[in-house]
């Protein structure tokens, strides 16, 4: 039972009688609320306050409470603090009392000046060390920790979005017992008492999310010491079982792999979406390493990426060569590659791919690497181990280390045994830590039925979700930004998680739950972490601890290669792919909401997904041929039947998807439990997922059901012609006679929006981006402007309208001229920049219906263009935001002058002046302006108010908005430079998108400073303007891509 918002949230703060005054004081210590009274005593002594308190908390204020060990005065103090925190939590109405400013200002706080703290975001595949921007003690931006050797300041979609997750208004705010508001103390007591009654913890089971915290593992050891019969099982719907099983077979113990892509000339991904996001372990270093070697520079060997995959991903489309195979075929392919023989029954095209790949791998001299995907079968992992070992890659481009998870396990097997125990009535207490098995467990386990067999079920979760709703106890979980812990990252480095904000709704972490069974149940997570940190912080602990907190990581904790080297070849013992019949179904974590944990994060739901550009939806994704075979059109609802279970999903075609397989993404189709954002979005693919087919399964059938379902896709070209191609025009395509083409992709090349060349071509003509002639530049083919690409200056009435060398009249200095360069070779289309932009610029979420009609508000989008035959296309990614044209069309047509140019070349929006004629958008050839058609900004939800960046206005209805080049960051840098009486240094201003970009594809700076990075990039021959012939002179330019295809496959 959820308690409606508006209810006071402080009850759980009042501990039962045994709480001492000292503890109360300790709890209060350092508490800071949003409203600040002169001091709490003064507040607590006023008669008005007594009255208010009686009204608000009759139970606590009742006379019987006065005899408690907590003195009356102390009690009121707690109440006062709680009220102050109620203000903090923002779930009560604003108090009527006058609010005073600080009398004693907190020491570190300068209002308006943000502070930065290092912490880490725990994720099953390894933590992401982050640096959190905090304004008045509210976290307002999460970015990668620049000092961390792994993240180097970069981040990803999920990490960025954890900010909104923290302020999610649907987070649970209370401990609930059978739906009634209870308290942590009551639970603690009940749990500890019950545990003591068992014989050695018999019947106490923990079901935890994947553990990456050394301290939690240490705590579990202590619990086991006290209760040897208690059990802890880790389970997540998206897990690493394949790699666990394969590594156990190859190495004898569970092992993680670390890849060094900066060393690899040839990369083969076996269904590994290592450029897609942190769902793949080590996304950040892998993406950075890949991009580093994929940059085209004179005298540098470019890497070459081969991808064999099912669902078309950004990794696949970044690859020089991509082979689309069914999951079962990928296993066959990998085993064949490991055995050195071409797979049986391969097509000519596959044979060619196989031959080129094999020769490349062999000739690389060990400078190659094979990466198996976490969603690939164990056999693929075994093949990858064998290949890396045979090719001499181990120790060079890959090392094998102990696992990031201190307690690695094969999760499905464990879950099966747990369910068996539950059914057998062996489970007395089931304590679920951060998992939602009712929603996500494979259906064939019958988890829900077994659940009913358990006398006491407890769930620690941040929301009262599907499991919480039917558990006896629900404990509200703290967010990682509110709690103490420690975690390991991909490379093994330990980071301390430190809270950025007081728990907004109280809340407890897994540490607290385990601690409840130990000798000192009141010990805080902080103490536990400090105690355990002593095992890995070497030297002077106090100094080491401070350094660890400051740096965000503990030196010397990274993993080193495990003894045992390459492991033994376990390929022979790996099961070959089973013969398949019927359609295969491949289950994938969603690129935006993962396994469903981000279902209530609006930024991620609305984010156009990689490659598909789906927003607010998932779909049954299939190829053109499969769509035609099943007699479907896009948006048709299709019933997928698998082992007697059915789910209805909208059909969607994605170019490059293999035939005979349907990919579905997990995490959707949730009910009200998901919260106000996540409920009713998409369909629930867990409904047809079984323990045997967690990754993929064959034998499915798909049939059209009547009706239609309007998919929500942000790029209309994806839907408008593709479906009709598939159905009606396969024989005679509408626009191009040669094959099945994407009209939009075709036009993107015709219009020279996308330009690229192969390595050979760029060597022949480095200026291919302007002179054409390369395979990906058609300038010579289409003269859409009679003058060619660039309009001669003499054609303009104002040839010198933009003078770069403009002097500032007051300082007589040459003014800055801001510009941006985006390297299309490096852009991997991962979307991290968009979410970063969301957080930085207070961009509203508009919802499914609005996105469907094209009103999504992202200032930045990743344009995806498919090139060539849609059965096996290439794709190109292009980040597109306001281009800050020097000769901007938008500025000339605004009737009120609401969009104007600054002397430094920014095209700025004056929100206050905008009346909303939308003429500017019509005249923008890049269509990067976004309009508040309705009141999109959420002015009402209290918790979201804390999240906003105070340096950026929250736009109201009827106002146009767009990318500002993060003008607030430019101004902040100017102020600092002014105070220090110096020029702004190159690289000092980092835009939000640039900051997040894992591959450093975006460069921003002063193009008047010829030594700046951006000026140098713009001086390169490959630098080009999109739509140059319109003479808008955009300040954002793109560096044309260079690909390195195998000569035989080119």
């Amino acid at each position, binding site marked *: 039972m959820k308690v409606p918002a508006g209810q006071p949230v402080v009850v759980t703060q009042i501990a039962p009688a045994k709480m001492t005054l000292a503890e109360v004081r300790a709890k209060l210590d350092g508490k800071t609320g949003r409203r600040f009274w002169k001091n709490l005593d003064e507040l607590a002594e006023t008669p008005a306050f007594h009255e208010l308190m009686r009204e608000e908390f009759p139970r606590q204020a009742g006379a019987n409470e006065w005899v408690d060990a907590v003195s009356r005065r102390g009690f009121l103090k707690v109440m006062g603090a709680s009220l102050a925190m109620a203000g903090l939590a923002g779930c009560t109405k604003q108090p009527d009392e006058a609010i005073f400013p600080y009398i004693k200002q907190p020491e570190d706080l300068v209002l308006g000046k943000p502070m930065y703290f290092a912490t880490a975001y725990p994720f099953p595949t390894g933590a992401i060390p982050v640096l959190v921007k905090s304004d008045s003690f509210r976290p307002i931006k999460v970015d990668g920790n620049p000092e961390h050797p792994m993240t180097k300041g970069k981040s990803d979609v999920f990490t960025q979005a954890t900010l909104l997750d923290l302020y999610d208004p649907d987070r649970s705010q209370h401990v609930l017992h059978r739906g009634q508001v209870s308290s942590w103390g009551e639970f603690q007591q009940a749990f500890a008492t019950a545990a003591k009654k068992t014989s050695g913890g018999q019947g106490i089971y923990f079901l935890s999310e994947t553990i990456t915290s050394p301290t939690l593992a240490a705590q579990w050891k202590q619990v086991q010491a006290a209760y040897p019969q208690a059990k802890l099982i880790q389970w997540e719907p998206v897990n690493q079982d394949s790699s666990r099983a394969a590594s156990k077979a190859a190495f004898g113990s569970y092992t993680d792999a670390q890849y060094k892509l900066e060393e690899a000339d040839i990369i083969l991904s076996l269904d590994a979406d290592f450029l897609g996001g942190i769902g793949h372990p080590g996304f950040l270093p892998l993406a950075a390493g890949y991009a580093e070697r994929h940059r085209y520079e004179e005298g540098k060997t470019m890497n070459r990426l081969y991808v064999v995959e099912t669902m078309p991903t950004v990794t696949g489309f970044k690859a020089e060569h991509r082979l689309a195979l069914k999951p079962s075929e990928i296993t066959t392919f990998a085993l064949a590659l490991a055995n050195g023989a071409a797979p049986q029954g391969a097509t000519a095209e596959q044979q060619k791919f196989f031959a080129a790949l094999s020769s490349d791998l062999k000739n690389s001299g060990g400078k190659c690497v094979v990466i198996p995907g976490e969603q690939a079968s164990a056999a693929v992992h075994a093949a990858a181990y064998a290949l890396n070992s045979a090719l001499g890659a181990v120790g060079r481009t890959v090392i094998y280390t102990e696992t990031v998870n201190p307690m690695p396990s094969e999760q499905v097997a464990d879950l099966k045994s747990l369910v068996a125990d539950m059914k057998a009535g062996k489970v007395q207490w089931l304590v679920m830590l951060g998992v939602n098995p009712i929603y996500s467990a494979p259906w064939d386990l019958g988890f829900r039925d077994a659940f009913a067999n358990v006398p006491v079920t407890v769930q620690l979760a941040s929301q009262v979700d599907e499991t919480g709703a039917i558990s006896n106890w629900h404990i509200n979980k703290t967010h990682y930004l509110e709690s103490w812990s420690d975690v390991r990252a991909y490379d093994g480095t330990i980071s301390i998680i430190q809270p950025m904000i007081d728990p907004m709704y109280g809340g407890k972490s897994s540490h607290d739950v385990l601690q409840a069974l130990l000798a000192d149940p009141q010990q805080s997570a902080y103490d536990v972490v400090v105690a355990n940190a002593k095992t890995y912080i070497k030297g002077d602990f106090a100094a080491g601890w401070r350094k660890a907190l400051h740096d965000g990581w503990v030196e010397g904790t990274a993993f080193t290669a495990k003894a045992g080297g390459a492991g033994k070849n376990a390929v022979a013992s790996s099961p070959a792919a089973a013969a398949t019949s019927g359609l295969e179904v491949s289950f994938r974590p969603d690129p935006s909401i993962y396994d469903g944990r981000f279902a209530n994060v609006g930024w991620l739901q609305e984010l156009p997904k990689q490659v598909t550009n789906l927003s607010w939806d998932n779909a049954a994704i299939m190829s053109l041929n499969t769509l035609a075979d099943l007699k479907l059109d896009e948006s048709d609802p299709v019933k997928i039947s698998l082992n007697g279970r059915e789910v209805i999903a909208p059909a969607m075609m994605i170019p490059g998807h293999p035939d005979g397989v349907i990919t579905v993404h997990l995490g959707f189709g949730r009910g009200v439990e998901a919260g106000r954002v996540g409920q009713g979005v998409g369909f629930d693919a867990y409904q047809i997922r079984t323990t045997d087919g967690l990754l993929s399964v064959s034998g499915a059938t798909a049939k059209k059901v009547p009706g239609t379902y309007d998919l929500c896709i942000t*790029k*209309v*070209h994806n839907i*408008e012609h593709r479906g009709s191609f598939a159905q009606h025009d396969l024989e005679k395509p509408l626009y191009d006679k040669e094959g099945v083409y994407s*009209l*939009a992709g075709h*036009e*993107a090349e*015709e*219009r020279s*929006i996308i330009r690229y060349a192969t390595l050979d071509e760029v060597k022949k003509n480095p200026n291919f981006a302007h002179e054409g002639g390369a395979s990906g530049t058609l300038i010579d083919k*289409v*003269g*859409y402007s*009679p003058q060619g690409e660039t309009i001669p200056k003499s054609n303009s009435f104002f040839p010198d309208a933009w003078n770069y060398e403009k002097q500032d009249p007051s300082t007589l200095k040459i003014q800055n001229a801001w510009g941006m360069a985006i390297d299309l070779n490096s852009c991997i289309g991962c979307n991290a920049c968009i979410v970063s932009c969301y957080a930085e610029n207070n961009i509203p979420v508009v919802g499914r219906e*609005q996105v469907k*009609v*094209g*009103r999504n508000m992202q200032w930045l*989008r990743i*344009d*995806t*263009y498919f090139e060539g035959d849609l059965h096996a296309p290439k794709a190109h990614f*292009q980040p*597109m935001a306001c281009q800050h044209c020097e000769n901007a*069309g938008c500025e*000339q*047509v*605004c*009737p*009120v*002058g609401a969009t104007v140019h600054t002397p430094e070349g920014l095209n700025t929006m004056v929100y206050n*002046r*905008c*009346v*909303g*004629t*939308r*003429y500017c*958008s*019509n*005249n923008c*050839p*890049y*269509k*990067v*302006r*976004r*309009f*508040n*058609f*309705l*009141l999109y900004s959420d002015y009402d939800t209290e918790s979201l108010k804390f999240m906003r960046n105070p340096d950026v206005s929250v736009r109201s*209805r*009827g*106002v*146009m908005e767009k990318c500002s080049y993060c003008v607030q960051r430019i101004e902040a840098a100017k102020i600092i430079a002014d105070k220090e009486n110096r020029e702004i240094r190159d690289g000092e201003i980092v835009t939000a998108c640039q900051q997040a970009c894992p591959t450093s594809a975006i460069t921003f700076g002063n193009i008047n400073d010829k030594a700046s990075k951006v000026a140098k990039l713009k001086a390169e021959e490959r630098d080009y303007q*999109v*739509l140059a012939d*319109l003479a808008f002179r955009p300040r954002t330019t793109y560096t044309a891509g260079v690909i390195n295809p195998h000569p035989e496959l080119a």
Partner: protein
Amino acid sequence: MATKGPMQDPIVDPMIDPRTGEYAVIAPGHNFKSVTQKIAGIVLTSNTPLGWFFGLMVGGGVAMGVVIGCTWLFLKGVGIWGVTIPGAWGFAIINFVWWIGIGHAGTLISAILLLFKQTWRNSINRFAEAMTIFAVVCAGTFPLIHVGRPWLAYWLFPYPNTMNVWPQFRSPLAWDVFAVSTYASISIVFWYMGMIPDFGTLRDRATMPLAKYFYGILSLGWRGSTRHWIRYESASLLLAGLSTPLVLSVHTVISFDFAVAALAGWHTTIFPPYFVAGAIYSGFAMVITLAIPIRKFYHLEDLVTLRHLDNMAKVMLGTGLIVAYGYGMEVFMAWYSASHWEFFMMWNRMFGPMGWAYWILILTNITIPLTTLWSRKLRVNVTYLFLLSFVINTGMWFERFVIVVTSLYRDYLPSSWGTYRATKWDYMIYVGTMGLFTFLFFLFVRFLPMIPMSEIRMMLPQTKITRGGADAETVSKETA
């Protein structure tokens, strides 16, 4: 007039002027009194026809669409419409251009035809002018409500303010403000001034004290003295001179909204003449739509004769041909310019997902009217003309739809291509303005003289003064 013999003159219709073979502008048999009685009788009658009440009610009821639509619009924002990115303009702008275009015929009739001394215009100019004003009212609603923050729409006007902020004068939308407001004010003044002599007549003939008072105020003390007439005539000429450039300039400026932009399909120099011609085309169609039922309902066939319909149909034929030339030139230039943008825009306009709109436009604006209006038979066929006027105005609406929507929804970057789907609110407000127009027009025909009595009287044979005792002014009038 008929001659005897086998070669019987086909012209036996009393409405046909034997000298010219044309239809007479006024049916024979009218004198000063009959004209005055007929026209003033409509206004001063105490027996308001029931049909009038019915029409007013229907018009008013439909006009509620504007009220309801705008209320919801002001509460929620322009997002209730189908506008989006990339199609940030939709029905509001289409309707605005359409209504303004319709208004143009009234000004053309009252100003340019006056200067060209086309006396046939006299019978229709009053209600054509009224149509102009009501069309401008409908049109003027749209730019104000289509902005995102309508409560700040006054920022488009150059008003002195403490912030010293002015409109951005390079923007065609700022020019629109001047064009439309000038147009509205001149049209109202011209219309009102033309009615002053008639108000005098009504004042004199009114029996009800309220009507006497009302028309007395409106007539501004008109006594019909020669001095009044002299001033009246010269003021008419002056205002006609002022209005004449407006006929050309207003729609030219509105075409700049598109022509100045950098969008393929908008960015074209042919827009000003082609918009003006289109405006007159649709305006005359609307005059016909109004004239035919009015002359039938109020039995004004002898004042608004087939001659008028025939002439208006000829104007439509002429302007329609200019419009057709414009369409042809657009296609030709798309090819001849060798510009990929233009070429793709035209291809997409014709064969893209919204190609149907283009072909409706060609059918209704070009094919149907321009093949049939050559026939005199059809030009004087009242039923046909009435239906055709609807066809043409549908076509003209689609012309603006094609220009606004099909240029926008697939522009330069294929990634931002979208589509446009109007919502029920779009339709509600659009249909609502038609109701508003009808409502205002019904009020007009009931309370104001819809045909200028004074000007009709001047056209009667009785004003032909025989030599000796001729009044100089009326002679000059007649010889014209």
